[in-house]
């Protein structure tokens, strides 16, 4: 087998050195009862070419060559070619967690740069070296707020991504953290601040708001933060579309929990992605996840190392801030290269292109909400599943029908346009939606 670098004669020599007659004798000490006495019921190994063929056929069974207007937490953005060039280097791809600083300065330096750029983007003082994804960053941020405030309730806006809220509930349930939700205004699609006022109390640790929210609407995070702070709670801001930070003013949050998939991370049917948590200086010791810090070596040269490890599982064990062991280092590196390629001006330009494309589409489609939006919006579409069937015939994947998450919006879909969306496809989408709308009026 091509990954096993030993010849039979070498195996023989090693067995002899061990005083073992046959390879099976290596397992002789295992109790008979636990042994598997038959081969694994799996087909024999295949060649590289057959492996490629297998996955190519699977890929062909997926959508191929379709235009897509899906967003909803996962976005289609160009991936600069440099991203794969860099992460394909064996030194990055096949290296281990940088516990041994002397031989991991490559990884440590890029993580330090990553942490810096996330702070610059979000306006926060400190950022960690990434969480699994945006959805798990949310409960981690909520638990962090609970530790800081000493309180135990969380209030999440209904306009936070529905699957993120599901994950929050799964984690919160076992932490004795009741999660309540507050609604959105029917007209604007933004959070209902009065509902927040009604529901917040002196046991609320975190108010969780997403901006742009799941409907694509930009929230008044400052107003929500004021309400939170008046009651002694922390404001957790969530983002799923990182490109929006290229043009949007960073919000006045206490903790930011976000998803970086937009930064050159392939949609890849749902993962792997990279989340981040960023916060203000006073809260750094309550932050979960790996952190890289700057220091010096014995000769006084600048060097980087993992630090504040005492927050983490391998030391604090049952008192750890989280059980997380990984950071998404390679994924974070993709995002770092992306941010490097685009840089200060490029990220802004990219955001402006997204704004232009989505607002062009919105001119013909009439958004259902009046709130200001970035690159996604909700549009009424009669029977969204039927509309999407018609679109599929034209090799277009339409927006996400919202009925599965918001029963009150069963006649609506969430559409997203990015810098990759072509005018011709947007025109076709509009045409189909408008003609169906007309057909319904006539019916």
């Amino acid at each position, binding site marked *: 087998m091509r990954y096993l670098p030993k010849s039979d004669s070498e195996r023989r020599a090693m067995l002899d050195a061990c005083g073992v007659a046959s390879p099976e004798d290596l397992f002789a000490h295992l109790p008979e009862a636990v042994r598997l006495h038959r081969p694994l019921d799996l087909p024999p190994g295949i060649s590289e070419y057959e*492996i490629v063929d297998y996955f190519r056929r699977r*890929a062909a069974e997926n959508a191929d060559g379709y235009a897509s207007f899906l967003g909803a937490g996962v976005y289609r953005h160009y991936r600069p070619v440099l991203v794969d060039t860099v992460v394909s280097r064996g030194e*990055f791809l096949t290296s281990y967690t940088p516990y041994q*600083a002397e031989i991991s300065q490559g990884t440590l330096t890029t993580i330090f740069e990553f942490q*810096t750029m996330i702070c610059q983007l979000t306006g926060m003082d400190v950022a960690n070296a990434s969480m699994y994804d945006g959805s798990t960053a949310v409960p981690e941020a909520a638990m962090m707020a609970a530790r800081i405030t000493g309180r135990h309730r969380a209030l999440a806006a209904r306009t936070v991504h529905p699957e993120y809220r599901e994950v929050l509930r799964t984690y919160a349930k076992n932490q004795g953290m009741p999660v309540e939700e507050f609604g959105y205004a029917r007209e604007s699609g933004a959070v209902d601040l009065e509902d927040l006022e009604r529901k917040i109390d002196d046991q609320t640790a975190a108010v969780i708001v997403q901006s742009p929210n799941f409907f694509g609407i930009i929230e008044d995070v400052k107003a929500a933060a004021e309400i939170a702070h008046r009651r002694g709670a922390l404001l957790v801001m969530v983002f799923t579309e990182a490109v929006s930070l290229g043009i949007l003013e960073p919000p006045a949050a206490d903790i930011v929990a976000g998803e970086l998939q937009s930064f050159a991370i392939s949609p890849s049917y749902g993962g*792997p992605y990279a989340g981040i948590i960023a916060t203000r200086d006073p809260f750094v010791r309550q932050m979960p996840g790996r952190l890289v810090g700057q220091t010096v070596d014995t000769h006084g040269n600048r060097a980087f190392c993992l*630090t504040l490890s005492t927050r983490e599982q391998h030391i*604090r064990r049952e008192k750890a801030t989280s059980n997380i062991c990984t950071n998404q280092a390679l994924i974070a590196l993709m995002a770092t290269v992306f941010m*490097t390629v685009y840089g200060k001006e*490029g990220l802004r330009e990219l955001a402006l292109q997204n704004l232009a494309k989505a607002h062009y589409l919105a001119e013909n489609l009439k958004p259902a909400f009046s709130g200001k939006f970035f690159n996604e919006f909700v549009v009424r579409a009669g029977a969204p599943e039927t509309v999407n069937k018609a679109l599929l015939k034209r090799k277009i994947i339409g927006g996400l029908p919202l009925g599965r998450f918001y029963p009150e919006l069963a006649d609506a879909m969430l559409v997203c346009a990015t810098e990759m969306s072509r005018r011709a496809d947007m025109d076709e989408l509009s045409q189909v939606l408008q003609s169906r709308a007309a057909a319904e009026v006539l019916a």
Partner: protein
Amino acid sequence: MIQKVRSHQSQNEALLFERSSPGKRAWQLPELDVPAVDAAGALGAANVRAEIEGFPEVSEVEAIRHFTRLSTWNYAIDYGMYPLGSCTMKYNPRINELVARIEGLAWAHPYQPEALAQGAMEVMVRLEAALAEITGMDAVTLQPAAGAQGELTGILLIRALLEKGGNPRQRILIPDSAHGTNPATAAIAGYTVENVKSTAAGVLDLEALARAVTKDVAALMVTNPNTLGVFEENITQAAEILHAKGAMLYMDGANMNALVGIARPGDFGVDVMHLNLHKTFSTPHGGGGPGAGPVAVKKALEPFLPVPRLKRVRGKWAYDFNRKRSIGRVRAFYGNFGVLVRALAYILAHGGPGLRNATVDAVLNAVYIRKRLEAHFDLPYPAPNMHEVVFSDERQAKSGIRTGDLAKRLIDYGFHPYTVSFPLIVHGALMIEPTETESKLEIDQFVAAMISIANEVETDPEMVKQAPHSTRTSRVDEVLAARKPVLRWKPA
């Protein structure tokens, strides 16, 4: 002196921000085919940011040089062995990278219509089935993003089953040899942790276990082979003790590399376990992630698995969201699909017989290392080891040299250190796991390096204490980094 890897001193490089200069660019976007939009008008003037202060501006050439130079400061599997115990740092097959990037898989959106996601769903079903066969369990979820998350999922499943019976119970038992994620996970799942001591031979103490298992204990979390690399020979009896009191056996699958094709956890009493695809199943560590932590369960726990599940409906794959007993979601979407693709490619490449052969080689390599080094390093637990071996620094400690120092000196010989100071039941542990993808030559060089270091401890201990000497960076001041944390760059 044996040195098979050149030290990485050839490149110097500053931080991106120190290389940055206004107006430099590495990007170009196509011209807009729609009218441009005024940001203040569309977003509201107060929402528009001035600029991203401090963000770098570099050209494409500087970008590629920056990352290339930095990469040369890393050690990697592509350079040589990582003898890290319980990490299973095996070769990351390159075909896996290629297939994960095939467009129809890499660009698939998790919300695209099921009719257009059949290929992705088929991949997941195939992997679930393969992992179920390998572990001897009844059902598998691929949702957890990493081993630690898989562990949490597993404990939540146990909690859900016990809750259905009326009492989730309060405590989880963990051996004192366990990895730190185990107690952290139990705490996050809302259980209190109780340590169970190992016997003098380093395995589960059945008597201590029997005393500790009351009707208030939900589960025992065990790693098998344990963190000493020793098979828990009493595992079936342990399972019986637990089951008799209505408790369950959770297995941390970190050491599966010793068992694939040889023994199956489902056959020796395990109720639920997690796997680390980035260990046993070769997906790349990438400097610290991503991984994936599938969870395999026995039938009784299947109803509680995270939602959605995959099912066959009229000849096609479909998602079943109607799972009333499910513990819910542990993350958005379906799992780290890109990692799952790589793990399946690994399984396809080996096949059934190949997977077993890999296990045999993994164990042979570790037993060989033990044989060659036991004359030079103290071996605290003499039981037969499997895919890893644990020595202690007791002999070298007499000269004032600890396992951490030996590890740093190993770097000078061109190797990454082994796992230092773990498990905690061994004072000054050296935990060594070669994996099956190391050649005899590589292992012989490693052994020679370790023996040489053992000799250096006798002749020149101070030199060992100051190691490494050949790296670009000497030992870093971790105390300073923790006392005065500097966690981002700031302009002067």
